[in-house]
């Protein structure tokens, strides 16, 4: 087992990582108000009286946000707390109209759960690993300050104020940047399967607070720092590397790590101190008296459970059981859109292994080239199934299939129509093939000589020449057999 270790001046260090991921709940309305939540709207156009904390305004929980958080909890096989409660986290800031954030400190909606990251030898994850998730609670997002609108004043945009977030808190179970990266990717994948968060890190729908500490392997946990609001998988990994390195250098030079909040500067790839524990806020958490405890009944939980789709792990297992390679199964299940597309392809009759190979190479290659993603694929699963069917039943060869696929992308026409129109049907007419083989062997008498003398690698050359002469339309198996006979 190749464990991730950092070599310091004085020996090896192990890094310990825990992540708090903030995921914006997919919902048309905010957590406690009816205001809209669309990204990119004009400032202060999605603000209700509640979001602006006008006098006398009251929060009312949005059932859909609670439902999404419960479904997410179920997807990580977590304990769902049928009784939970909202607390106020009090602090003053201009982007926080109420002067407090409604969150859940004491009694979160979702308790202990976990997810599994898959083995990835290349990334240094030798085997699949279960990462504990301590809790998920729901809370309000704050607004946003704009510092570039006025020479001496800051403006406030409250569009995000009150938007529902899930805070997903992991156990300190990760031991390398790669594991942390895999955790975030897997979590994002699950959220997108469930449909509880769009996982869009660029738009801030998902961001992570990264807790890092270092220790001698086997020692007690060291003092951790928390780097706030990291908004990409790559940055999460970079934060861990740079922060672990900083802590090790600090300790080895005789210093001690202080518990503090830090910020990541992607331009300089380093973290810097924001505030230490000593000047941390006293948030004066207490139960929000505007809200009753949240009590969930069995019917609601049952509805949540029944609405869960097949999740990545189950899907991956199903694909592997169908003979698909673990690698392809990983690739196909990572993104929910790809998995759904692939499932539609299987439903349309495509054979799993051939379909998996074709999607991961041909389709992904084409989409990459076209700069689009699978949800906008110009070829539908049904069309692809038709194409793969033509290969499977021997109507066309794999090589011809590539040409047909190109035409499909260009024209949007069906595979069978293209094969018909372009006369691309492959032939198993042994007479015609034998005639071409005879010509090829006659034209390459010297190579036939060498082949017979033992240079067997030339067989592929003869196949290629024959196929070329047949304009690719010969059935490769038939060509193989006939060539073997002719060269015997």
């Amino acid at each position, binding site marked *: 087992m190749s464990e991730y270790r950092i070599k310091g001046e004085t020996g090896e260090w192990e890094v310990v990582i825990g992540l708090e991921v903030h995921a914006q709940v997919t919902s048309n309305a905010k957590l406690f108000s009816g205001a809209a939540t669309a990204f990119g709207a004009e400032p202060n156009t999605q603000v209700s009286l509640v979001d602006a904390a006008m*006098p*006398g305004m*009251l929060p009312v929980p949005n059932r859909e946000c609670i439902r999404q958080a419960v479904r997410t909890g179920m997807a990580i096989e977590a304990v769902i707390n049928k009784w939970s409660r909202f607390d106020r986290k*009090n602090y003053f800031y201009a982007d926080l109209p*109420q*002067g*407090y954030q409604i969150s859940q400190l004491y009694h979160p909606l979702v308790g202990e759960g976990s997810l599994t990251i898959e083995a990835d030898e290349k990334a240094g994850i030798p085997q699949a690993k279960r990462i504990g998730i301590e809790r998920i609670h729901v809370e309000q997002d704050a607004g946003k300050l704009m510092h570039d609108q006025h020479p001496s004043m800051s403006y406030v945009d409250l569009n995000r104020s009150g938007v529902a977030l899930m805070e997903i808190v992991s156990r300190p179970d990760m031991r390398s940047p790669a594991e942390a990266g895999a955790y975030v990717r897997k979590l994002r994948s699950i959220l997108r399967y469930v449909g509880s968060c769009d996982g869009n890190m660029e738009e801030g729908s998902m961001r992570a607070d990264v807790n890092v500490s270092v220790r001698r392997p086997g020692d007690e946990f060291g003092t951790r720092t928390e780097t706030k609001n990291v908004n990409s998988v790559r940055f999460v990994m970079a934060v861990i590397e740079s922060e672990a390195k900083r802590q090790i250098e600090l300790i080895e030079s005789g210093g001690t790590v202080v518990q503090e909040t830090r910020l990541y500067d992607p331009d300089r790839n380093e973290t810097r101190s924001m505030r230490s524990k000593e000047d941390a806020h006293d948030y*004066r958490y*207490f139960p929000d008296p505007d809200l009753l405890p949240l009590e969930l009944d069995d019917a609601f939980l049952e509805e949540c459970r029944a609405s869960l789709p097949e999740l990545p792990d189950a899907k991956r297992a199903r694909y592997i059981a169908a003979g698909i390679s673990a690698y392809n199964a990983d690739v196909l299940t990572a993104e929910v859109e790809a998995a759904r597309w692939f499932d539609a392809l299987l439903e349309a009759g495509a054979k799993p292994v051939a379909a998996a190979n074709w999607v991961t190479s041909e389709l992904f290659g084409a989409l990459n080239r076209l700069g689009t993603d699978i949800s906008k694929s110009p070829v539908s699963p049904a069309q692809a199934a038709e194409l793969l069917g033509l290969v499977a039943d021997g109507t066309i060869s794999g090589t011809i299939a590539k040409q047909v696929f190109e035409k499909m992308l260009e024209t949007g026409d069906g595979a069978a129509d293209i094969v018909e129109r372009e006369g691309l049907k492959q032939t198993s007419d042994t007479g015609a093939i034998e005639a071409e083989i005879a010509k090829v062997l006659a034209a390459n008498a010297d190579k036939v000589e060498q082949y017979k003398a033992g240079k067997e690698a030339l067989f592929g050359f003869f196949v290629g020449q024959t196929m070329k002469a047949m304009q690719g339309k010969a059935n490769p198996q038939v060509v193989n057999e006939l060539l073997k006979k002719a060269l015997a």
Partner: protein
Amino acid sequence: MSDLTNLTVAQIRDGHRAGEFSAVEVAEAFNANVADAKALNAFIVETPDHAIAAAKKADADRAAGTLKPLSGVPIGMKDLFATNGVQTTAASHMLEGFVPRYESTVSQKLWDAGCGMLGKLNLDQFAMGSSNETSYFGNVISPWRRKDGGNAALAPGGSSGGSSAAIAARLCPAATGTDTGGSIRQPAAFTGISGIKPTYGRCSRWGIVAFASSLDQAGPMARDIRDCAILLENMAGFDPKDATSLDQPVPNWEAALSSDLKGKKVGIPKEYRLDGIDADIAAMWDAGIAMLKDAGAEVVDISLPHTKYALPAYYIIAPAEASSNLARYDGVRYGLRELPQGAGLQDMYAATRAEGFGPEVKRRIMIGTYVLSAGFYDAYYTQAQKVRTLIARDFDNAFGSCDVILAPTAPSAAFGLGEKTADPLSMYLNDVFAVPASLAGLPAMSVPAALNREGLPLGLQIIGKAFDEQGVLNAGLAIEERAGFTARAEKWW
């Protein structure tokens, strides 16, 4: 025609319906009394046009046969309720000039029922106070005076002191109040009127400037029990905009009013009989017991053992919630903004809140901040919540052996303005009988029962089971019928 401002809500409603007078005449009569009573300082904003407009509508509706339950009844609105287009201040400099573009649920229901608004009534700042002396707009002066030859200005009670004074002085037939720890009942007792705090959750809190969310509850104040029942029916009801609102139908309290208490048991809590209790208060209480017996009720002794912890618990929980509820007044979005030259955000907060809040509000924000702070939370807030649970349990146990509880509303009659301002604790002690029912969320009302030796009104408090406003009102009616309280303040203003 007799003076229309002597009529009760029921009399105005019925007289208007019967065509004995027009709603405009009623509104004009009350508008005149309001205009003539500046000395009481009961109103922060007068809205005679609003009252007249509603009255014209009421008269038109009468002609068209489309009368509403309270058509033609003008009322006063405590200035804690947001009123669309009319300044809403909570009696604080912080909200001076603040004009909401929304209407509180309770006030909207009253307008929908046909009421007109005579004005926004003065109160203790953010409803924090028991004497109306914390208002930024000057204290309300009670219309009552001691019969001692002097003319000392007395407190109308608080926080709904504008409401109580205005009703007692016939500036309005009824008004809204809010009660967090006695703010309807104590001013009602001080001014010889009735007021009921319903079960927590009966009236929506949406649009009421928050003091302590888990305790705040709106209710009516009026001259008699029937008017309280009528008003409450038109204020209560489930509101999906308030997560703590009770999702229950509103009973027809007026129709079910009955002073026949046969088969009912009235509990007398021994813990309310404090050492050194005022003799007049004790006598009134005993008289009240006799009246309820006379109405057919059986009187039983009960114990509410945790009563002595109620006031300390209240003065932890209410300030804790207030310290958080009032954080929104920060100068950023509305209300007062103090922005000294070169000030940053923190400086703006400090200057705005220093200038905008009065001393009592600041005191409670500081107490609340302290009891919620790290290291003190468990010792104060958690303990207080436990006490609150025990107090609710006390009532549960007591209601195993009685239907309603009878006690004094306040330990004294109205005190003089300035008498208690130097000692906040003695001021807080005035809420000692009112606070337990607030902590337990129970319906409770004050009904005028007697005058003390100085000629000042005293009130009896009736506390009922959760949702049993009817039981409270009926016991109140039995007292009202027997006490024959007709005294009123002599006009000096």
